[in-house]
């Protein structure tokens, strides 16, 4: 059962990622990316990370993708001419090298059926969200505050970049 779910979600993720690269129209690419995010959320549910599945749907599919769609529609550029870059032969060499690398690694991997379960005594038997909340607000409190600072700087920077036209011209 779990194997079938993994096959479905993994196959859909890889297929929609290929479509993101393949489509010429940016709107189609963004929609394929939406499908990819949703299926990755399904993978998180299989992996018993329900909180991250919710965050993935809210932040990636809800916020980031809408931002992309806004910008694509705002720019409204018709894709004309070639759609690949100019240095494509060099890039093809690099891409084929990376693909051969990954495939060789996978061929040399022994696909172990199952890792032995490692008991973790420190973590109490709580739900996923409770455990993440406990660890995030005690052990990782300082990085959490830094993350909020990063978001604040990104907010200010995005406003300055998107609206500072009159000052710089």
């Amino acid at each position, binding site marked *: 059962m779990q194997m079938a779910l993994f096959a479905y979600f993994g196959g859909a993720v890889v297929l929609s990622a290929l479509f993101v690269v393949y489509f010429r129209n*940016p709107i189609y*690419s963004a929609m394929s990316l939406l499908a990819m995010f949703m299926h990755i959320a399904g993978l998180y549910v*299989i992996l018993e990370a329900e909180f991250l599945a919710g965050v993935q749907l809210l932040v990636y599919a809800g916020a980031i993708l809408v931002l992309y769609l806004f910008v694509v529609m705002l720019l409204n550029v018709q894709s004309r001419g070639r759609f690949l870059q100019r240095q494509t032969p060099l890039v093809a060499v690099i891409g084929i090298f990376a*693909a051969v690398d990954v495939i060789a690694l996978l061929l040399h991997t022994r696909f172990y059926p199952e890792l032995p379960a490692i008991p973790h005594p420190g973590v109490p038997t709580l739900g996923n969200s409770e455990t993440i909340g406990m*660890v995030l607000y005690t*052990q990782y409190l300082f990085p959490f505050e830094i993350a909020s600072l*990063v978001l604040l700087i990104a907010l200010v920077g995005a406003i300055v970049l998107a609206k*500072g036209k009159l000052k710089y011209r």
Partner: protein
Amino acid sequence: MVPLSWYVALSSFLFLIGLVGVLIRRNIVIVLLCIEIMLNAVNINFVAFSKYQHVIDAQIFVFFVITVAAAEVAIGLGIIIAIFRLRETINIDEFNILKL
């Protein structure tokens, strides 16, 4: 139970697709989308290892990665809009403002 290696294989394929997309596409919005694909590949790896090793810290790392991705998207799209006002194009091949 799905073996851990399968998740690693899936994530490496996904990272490869994102890398090739960043390298070959001309539209800079698609390049940013491919960067998101690579970030998600790393996130799948984190969550898979988090389950199989029974360590919750990896999921918190994924949380921070999502935060950084949101910041990166906001800044990157702001830069794209600023360059588009200046050059009227979104092809990376024509972004050579620094060598005016």
